[in-house]
C-alpha cells in the first residue's frame, strides 16, 4: 500500500493556517482545516475557529450529520468559546434536531456556567431519552442545587435516567439527596452507583446509614464501594468517633463472611504503584483507597484487635504519613492500648505505635526503654517520640543517640533535639568540641540551624571558617539563627567563600534573615561582574530592598540577558515608583521574554487608571502577554474589563482563554447575563 505524499507537510499546513490574512477566505480556510487528517492541524483550526467564527456558524456544523470530523471540531470550538457561545447554545437547545440539542447540552455542561441551568431543567422531560439524559448530566456538571427536587423525581424513572440522576446528585453535593440515595442500597440494580454518589457527596449525615448497611452486605464489589464511601466520609466528618464506635461489635464480627476477616484482608493487602502513581491491586481494585478506608474505620471505631495491622503499614514506604495522621486525629483508642502495642514482638508495630501515639510527659517511662530496642528503626522512632514529648530531661539520651547511633537514629535524634526547650540544648556542647568528628558536628549544627537560639555563638562562628565546606554550610545555617551583628557579618563574609554552594547558601540565609547591613553589602556586590551577581540580583528582589533600585536600574543596560531578566523580576518585587516607566520601556523592546516579564509586572501592579494599558496588551501578538493582560484585568475587575475578557475567552491560545474565563467568573454577574 503506497500513500501519495504530494500534499504539503503538517509543518507547511500549520504555517499556512498561522499566516491566514483577515479576509473572507480566512473562514473558508479554517472550515477546511477543521477536517484535516492531522490532529495538530485540526487543533490549530479549532483554536482559530473559536477565535474567529461566530457560534452560529459553528452551530450549523454541529447540525451537519454528514461530516463527523467537522462536527466534533465545531463542538470543541464552541466549548472553547465558553461564555461567548452560551447565548447561541441556548438557542440550539430549542432546535428540533435532537442530536444538536444533545450536543449543545454537553457543551453547556462542559462550559459549566450555572446561569445556563434554567434553560436546561425543562429538557429532563424531553421525549428523546438521550436528550433527557444529557440534560440530567448537565445539571450535575452545572452543580445546580435548585434542580435537586427534579433529579430526585427521576430516581423512579427509566434505568438510564436513574443512573444519570444518581450521578448528578453526587456531583451537586446537596445533603437532601442522602436519604433517597440510601434507600437504593442494597436492594436495587443501582445500589453501587448510589453508594458512589454518596461517596462524592461525603456529607456527615451519611456516616451512620452507611455504617449501618456495611455489616449486612457480603457482595464484594458493593462492600468495597460502601467502605470507600465510609473512608471519605470519615475523612471529612468533624467528629466521626461516637457514631463509628456504636458499630464496633458488628464490625468486629468474626464469622466467615463477617467484616473482620474482610478488613484484615484489606489491611494486609500488598499494594503496588500502578500507572500514573495510583495504587492498584492485582485485580484492578482501588486497593490503596480500600486500605486507607479500612484503616480509617479501624481507628475511628476503635477496633483495637486490628491496630497492629494498621501500625505495621507505617513501616512500609507507601503507608506512613496518612496512617500516623489518622491515629493523631483520633488518639484515644491508641492511648488506651499503647502499653500492649509497645510490647509487641513485631518491631513494625512497636515503631508504628511510637510514631503515631499522641504522647505526654507521663509517657516517658513507656518510651525510654525503646532507646535500647534491638531494632534501629524502633530506636529512631523512640527518638522522634521523645521530641514530641519535649521533656528537657531526655536531652542527654538524645545526644547520646546523636553521637553513637546509626544514621537513622542520628537523624531522628537531631530532629527531636530541635523540639526540646532551648535550655536542653546545652547538652550539644560536647558535640561541638574540636575533638568531635565532622559528622557529629554537622548533626549538632543541624539541630541549631532549626531553631532560634543564642547558644554556642563562638563555636558556631568558629565553624563558619572550617576547612570542610559541608561543615561551613551547616555552621552558616546555625549562624543564621543567631541574633546580632556578628552572625550577620559571618554570613556576609561567606558571600566571598571559595566554594560557590557555600556562597549561595549564605545568600539565601541572608535573604531569609533580612537586615539592613546585608542589603548594603548586596548592593555593593552588584558592582562585581562575577557569576554571583546573578544570584545577588535575585536576592535583592526577594529582600524587596528599595535601596537597590537605583543600582539595579543603572546596571540594566550593561549586563547580560540573564541578569536583565532578574533585574526586571527584582524591580517588580521591589515595586519602586519608577517601575511603570521601566516596564513600558521593556515592552517597547523586541526581546520576547523581557516583554513577557514586563507584562507580568503590569498585571501585578496596574492601578485602575492604567486599565487602558492592560486592554491594549490584550491585543498583543504574544500569547503570554495576552495571558498576563487577562490576569491583570481579572485582578482589577469592573464592568469596563468585560468586553476585553469576552474577546480573550475565545483566544487562539487555550491558556489565555482559560485565564480570561477565570477572570470573568470572578466578576459580579455571569458573562451570560452580560450577553443577554
Amino acid at each position, binding site marked *: *500500500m503506497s500513500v501519495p*505524499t504530494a500534499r504539503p507537510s*503538517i509543518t507547511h499546513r500549520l504555517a499556512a493556517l498561522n499566516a491566514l490574512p483577515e479576509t473572507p477566505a480566512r473562514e473558508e480556510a479554517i472550515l477546511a482545516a477543521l477536517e484535516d487528517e*492531522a490532529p495538530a492541524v485540526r487543533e490549530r483550526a479549532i483554536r482559530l475557529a473559536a477565535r474567529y467564527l461566530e457560534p452560529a456558524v459553528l452551530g450549523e456544523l454541529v447540525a451537519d450529520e454528514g461530516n463527523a470530523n467537522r462536527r466534533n471540531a465545531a463542538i470543541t470550538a464552541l466549548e472553547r468559546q465558553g461564555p461567548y457561545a452560551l447565548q447561541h447554545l441556548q438557542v440550539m437547545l430549542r432546535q428540533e434536531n435532537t442530536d444538536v440539542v444533545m450536543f449543545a447540552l454537553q457543551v453547556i455542561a462542559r462550559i459549566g456556567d450555572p446561569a445556563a441551568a434554567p434553560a436546561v431543567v425543562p429538557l429532563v422531560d424531553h421525549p428523546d431519552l438521550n436528550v433527557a439524559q444529557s440534560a440530567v448530566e448537565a445539571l450535575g456538571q452545572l452543580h445546580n442545587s435548585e434542580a435537586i427536587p427534579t433529579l430526585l423525581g427521576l430516581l423512579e424513572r427509566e434505568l438510564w435516567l436513574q443512573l444519570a440522576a444518581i450521578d448528578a446528585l453526587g456531583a451537586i453535593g446537596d445533603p437532601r439527596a442522602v436519604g433517597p440515595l440510601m434507600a437504593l442500597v442494597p436492594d436495587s440494580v443501582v445500589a453501587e452507583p448510589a453508594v458512589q454518589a454518596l461517596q462524592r457527596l461525603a456529607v456527615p449525615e451519611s456516616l451512620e446509614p452507611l455504617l449501618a448497611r456495611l455489616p449486612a452486605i457480603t457482595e464484594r464489589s458493593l462492600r468495597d464501594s460502601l467502605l470507600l464511601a465510609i473512608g471519605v466520609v470519615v475523612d471529612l466528618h468533624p467528629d466521626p468517633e461516637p457514631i463509628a464506635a456504636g458499630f464496633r461489635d458488628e464490625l468486629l464480627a468474626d464469622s466467615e463472611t463477617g467484616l473482620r476477616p474482610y478488613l484484615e484482608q484489606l489491611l494486609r493487602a500488598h499494594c503496588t504503584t500502578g500507572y500514573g502513581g495510583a495504587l492498584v491491586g492485582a485485580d484492578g481494585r482501588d486497593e490503596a483507597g480500600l486500605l486507607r478506608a479500612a484503616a480509617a474505620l479501624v481507628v475511628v471505631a476503635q477496633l483495637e484487635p486490628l491496630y497492629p495491622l494498621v501500625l505495621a503499614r507505617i513501616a512500609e514506604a507507601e503507608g506512613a504519613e496518612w496512617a500516623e495522621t489518622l491515629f493523631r486525629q483520633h488518639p484515644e483508642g491508641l492511648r488506651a492500648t499503647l502499653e500492649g502495642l509497645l510490647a509487641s514482638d513485631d518491631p513494625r508495630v512497636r515503631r508504628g505505635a511510637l510514631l503515631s501515639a499522641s504522647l505526654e510527659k507521663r509517657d516517658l517511662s513507656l518510651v525510654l526503654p525503646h532507646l535500647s530496642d534491638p531494632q534501629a528503626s524502633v530506636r529512631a522512632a523512640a527518638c522522634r517520640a521523645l521530641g514530641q514529648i519535649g521533656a528537657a530531661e531526655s536531652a542527654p539520651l538524645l545526644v547520646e543517640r546523636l553521637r553513637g547511633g546509626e544514621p537513622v537514629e542520628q537523624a531522628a535524634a537531631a530532629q527531636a533535639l530541635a523540639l526540646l526547650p532551648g535550655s536542653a540544648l546545652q547538652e550539644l556542647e560536647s558535640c561541638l568540641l574540636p575533638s568531635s568528628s565532622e559528622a557529629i558536628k554537622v548533626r549538632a549544627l543541624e539541630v541549631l540551624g532549626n531553631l532560634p537560639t543564642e547558644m554556642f555563638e563562638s563555636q558556631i562562628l568558629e565553624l563558619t571558617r572550617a576547612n570542610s565546606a559541608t561543615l561551613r554550610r551547616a555552621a552558616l545555617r546555625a549562624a543564621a539563627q543567631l541574633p546580632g551583628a556578628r552572625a550577620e557579618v559571618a554570613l556576609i563574609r561567606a558571600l566571598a567563600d571559595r566554594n560557590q554552594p557555600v556562597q549561595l547558601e549564605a545568600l539565601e540565609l541572608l535573604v531569609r534573615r533580612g537586615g539592613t547591613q546585608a542589603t548594603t553589602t548586596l548592593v555593593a556586590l552588584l558592582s562585581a561582574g562575577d557569576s554571583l551577581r546573578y544570584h545577588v540580583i535575585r536576592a535583592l528582589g526577594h529582600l524587596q530592598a528599595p535601596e537597590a533600585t537605583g543600582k539595579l536600574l543603572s546596571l540594566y543596560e550593561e549586563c547580560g540577558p*540573564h541578569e536583565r531578566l532578574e533585574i526586571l523580576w527584582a524591580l517588580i518585587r521591589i515595586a519602586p515608583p519608577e517601575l511603570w516607566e521601566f516596564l513600558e520601556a521593556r515592552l517597547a523592546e523586541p526581546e520576547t*521574554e523581557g516583554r513577557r516579564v514586563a507584562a507580568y509586572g503590569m498585571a501585578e501592579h496596574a492601578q485602575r487608571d492604567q486599565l487602558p494599558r492592560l486592554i491594549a496588551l490584550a491585543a498583543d501578538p504574544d500569547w503570554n502577554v495576552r495571558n498576563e493582560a487577562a490576569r491583570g484585568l481579572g485582578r482589577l475587575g469592573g464592568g469596563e474589563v468585560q468586553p476585553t475578557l469576552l474577546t480573550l475567552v475565545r483566544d487562539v491560545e487555550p491558556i489565555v482563554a482559560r485565564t480570561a474565563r477565570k477572570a470573568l467568573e470572578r466578576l459580579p454577574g455571569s458573562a451570560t447575563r452580560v450577553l443577554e
Partner: protein
Amino acid sequence: MTPMDAAEWKLLTDLIQQRFGLTFDGVRTNILESRLRPRLRELHLQSTREYYHYLCFHPDREAEFARLPLLITNNETYFFRESNQFDILVRHVVPERRREIKTRPFRMLSAGCSSGEEAYSAVIAFQNAGLELSGVRWEVDACDLNPLRIAQARSATYDMTSLRACDEEARRRYFIETGGRFQLRERHRKGVRFFETNLASPNGTFGWARYDAILCRNMLIYFSDEAFDSLIGLFARSLCPGGYLLLGHSESLLDRPSPFEPVSLGNGIVYRKTQPD
C-alpha cells in the same frame, strides 16, 4: 519550588519541543515537575519560570540543555526487548537485502539508542544466526541525544535492570560480571558505532551511511506531530530504496501519510520505504 502554572508549563514544554521535538501532551504536570524539582534546588531556582529563563539566557544554558534530556525522558531499555524484531531482521530483512549487501556490509541504525542495549542485541542476534559464516558483514550505527547515555553505551557496562530479559546462560555467554555490573564481551561490540545527535533538528541527516534498516522503537511516542513528520522524512532520506523501518509495538505509521508501506514479516508489521531515490 512554587507549583507550575499552565503558562509556565507551556513556556517550558514549548521550549523542549522546539529544541528536542519532544512533546508532553497528555503528561501530567506533576510528573515533569517532580523530575525537575531536584535540579531546580541544585540551581537555587524557585520556579519553573526561573528555570525556563535559565535555559533561555544563562551563560551555562548549553550545558543545561545537554543535561535536560536525562531528566525528562524515559530511558527504559534492556537487552532483547521486543526480541521478535531481531528475528524479523535476521530471518527476513537481511535475506531480502542479500543482493544489495553482496559487496558491502548490511547497515543498520538504532535511532534513540539510549545506553546501547538495542544495538548490541542486534549484533548478538546477527552472530547467533551465523551471518558471519554465510559471508554477511554488518555495520551498526546508534545515536541518541543524550551524551551521558552515549558514554554509557560506549562503555558497554550495565546493571541487572538492563539484563532483565537474559537468563543465567545468556548472562554468562554475553557478559563478564564485575562487582555486580556486567560488561558486554568484546566480540559483541564489534562493528557498533555510537554518536550523539538530535533527531528533531530540522532538515537533519545522519551524515554517515545509508541504511538497510532503521530501528526506532518506543521513541516516536514522545514526538509532536510536526517532529514525527519531520523524523519520518529523515528516516526515508537515510534509508536505501526498499530499506526497512522497525517501530515499537505501540507505534504505527498506518494512520498518516508517509513514504513507507506496511509489510507483514514474521509475526510483526514493519515499514518498507516506497520512494525511489
